[in-house]
């Protein structure tokens, strides 16, 4: 294994789901963590205990339970701020997922109630994304472009699954650049420092969809050089229903509220309102309290293991998988075939066999759970001239034995369709 301290069998025991079998006694081989991750006992128990013994609304209840709930909820914010190296805890905004975090920022641009020049947007201005984005980092910007008349542009993707940086896509008219830190299909880790440099030189802001990076690598938002970072809880051993937007304080302060409602205000009159300071300005209504606390526990769990160790383990699995998949001559990897600048997500096609058939047989006969389809990245698949791929994605609890099971399953799939 990676190091003497990283014991994958011990880690698997922390996740109750790995003690179950699938129907007909098949073992569970879960290679779909890029879609959503499994949950350790610590997260499950923390959420259960909060619901059972401490639950109340946060921020507004003047009683013991209200204080306990608020302390746990705000404590989770502190943990997450620490986990991603946020210079201030108030820069961590809870959303319901990464999509909401991306939309929140998109709605700050071209908004008539926001006159800050960094956020004005209209015809002639540019929004820059990339061809490898998840739909959640495409559609909010398409909608923004439609609302404002700004031009939507994108970086292309090279044949080996890298961002094509040869073209000058970012210009002095660019106001915002938003790209994936790590592709949810290709596994490619994008060169954030270079992108941030280009964006800032052009006077633009830069946002990262870090949904696939924060769960798998040590990420320090202050060192990344980005202005906004979005990620989601359920992919990092936390619950669904909770996501995070990190943003630089001076920008968050300059942005208008996204959703209006309770707890995001300072004072309300019938004809106008003033708003609470960040982060509460962006957290209208009762938040996902227990989910936030669960994410705090997830961060405790990952910190206990160590993100360096998680990254190293996944790197080992990825190296093993890239090698093992070479055993199948008709398999084509969509994305980088070397370890350099990539994470533990491997998408591929099998010649002449549709991914839905691949996924069905892997599941039905081998208990191997992978994702098949376009993985919410349809433009990327169009770029490669394919309708869909099969995707295996690894996490801290996966083993090389599970990759062997995948390869055995793929051999069988080929036999069925030979």
């Amino acid at each position, binding site marked *: 294994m990676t190091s003497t301290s990283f014991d994958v069998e011990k880690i698997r025991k922390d996740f109750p789901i790995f003690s179950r079998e699938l129907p007909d006694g098949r073992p569970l081989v879960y290679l779909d963590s890029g879609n959503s991750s499994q949950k350790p006992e610590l997260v499950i128990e923390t959420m259960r205990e909060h619901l059972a013994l401490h639950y109340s609304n946060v921020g507004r209840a003047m009683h013991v339970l209200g204080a306990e709930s608020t302390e746990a909820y705000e404590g989770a914010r502190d943990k997450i701020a620490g986990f991603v190296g946020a210079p201030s805890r108030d820069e961590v905004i809870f959303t319901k997922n990464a999509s909401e975090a991306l939309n929140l920022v998109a709605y700050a641009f071209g908004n008539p109630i926001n006159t800050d020049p960094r956020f004005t947007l209209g015809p002639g201005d540019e929004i820059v994304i990339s061809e490898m984005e998840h739909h959640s980092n495409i559609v909010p910007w398409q909608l923004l472009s439609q609302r404002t008349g700004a031009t939507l542009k994108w970086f292309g993707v090279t044949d080996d699954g890298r961002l094509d940086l040869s073209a000058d896509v970012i210009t002095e008219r660019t106001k915002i650049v938003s790209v994936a830190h790590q592709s949810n299909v290709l596994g490619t880790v994008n060169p954030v420092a270079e992108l941030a440099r280009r964006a800032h030189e052009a006077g633009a802001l830069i946002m990262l969809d870090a949904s696939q990076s924060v769960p798998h690598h040590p990420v320090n938002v202050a060192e990344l050089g980005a202005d906004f970072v979005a990620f989601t809880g359920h992919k990092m051993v936390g619950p669904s229903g909770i996501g995070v937007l990190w943003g630089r304080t001076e920008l968050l302060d300059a942005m208008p509220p996204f959703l209006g409602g309770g707890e995001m205000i300072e004072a309300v009159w019938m004809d106008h309102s003033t708003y609470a300071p960040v982060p509460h300005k962006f957290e209208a209504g009762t938040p996902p309290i227990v989910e936030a606390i669960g994410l705090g526990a997830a961060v405790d769990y990952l910190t206990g293991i160590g993100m360096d160790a998680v990254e190293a383990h996944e790197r080992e699995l990825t190296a093993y998988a890239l090698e093992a998949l070479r055993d199948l001559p008709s398999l084509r990897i969509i994305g980088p075939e070397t370890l350099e600048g990539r994470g533990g997500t491997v998408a591929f096609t099998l010649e002449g066999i549709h991914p839905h058939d691949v996924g069905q047989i892997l599941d039905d006969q081998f208990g191997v759970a992978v994702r098949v389809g376009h993985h919410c990245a349809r433009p990327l698949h169009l770029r490669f001239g394919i309708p*869909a791929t099969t995707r295996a994605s690894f996490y801290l609890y996966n083993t090389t034995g599970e990759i062997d099971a995948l390869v055995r399953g793929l051999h069988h799939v080929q036999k069925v369709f030979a």
Partner: protein
Amino acid sequence: MIGESMYQELILEHYKHPQGRGLREPYDAEVHHVNPTCGDEITLRVKVGDAGKILDVSYDGQGCSISQAAASVLHELATGSTVEESLSVVDEFTRLMQGRGQVEADEEVLGDAVAFAGVAKFPARVKCALLSWMAYKDAVVRSAP
């Protein structure tokens, strides 16, 4: 195992050697149907002759083995029958597919299409099997003078 029952030999045969594939002239109606959840798509044409006789069902598309084999079986069953006969087969096939595996297939009516009975147990795949059959129904309706 469950998977084996879904991927019947007959389905695999039709997938590997599709019958009547390719768009042909002449035709009375052409339709294009897609399954947005998986991206499968089909373009299908029908030519209807005297007394409602189906002279040709031609098609082209892309998708999984289930969707492609279903189109091939449809071509074989519908071509040469009448509009009325073929639509009753479509109805029976639809009943089988939507029966969650609880419906006994009428082999007299369905012929080779009974091979798809196993698919009905997989809700996510039922749409794959029905894609071309729904397109055919649509095309027949549109071909009516």
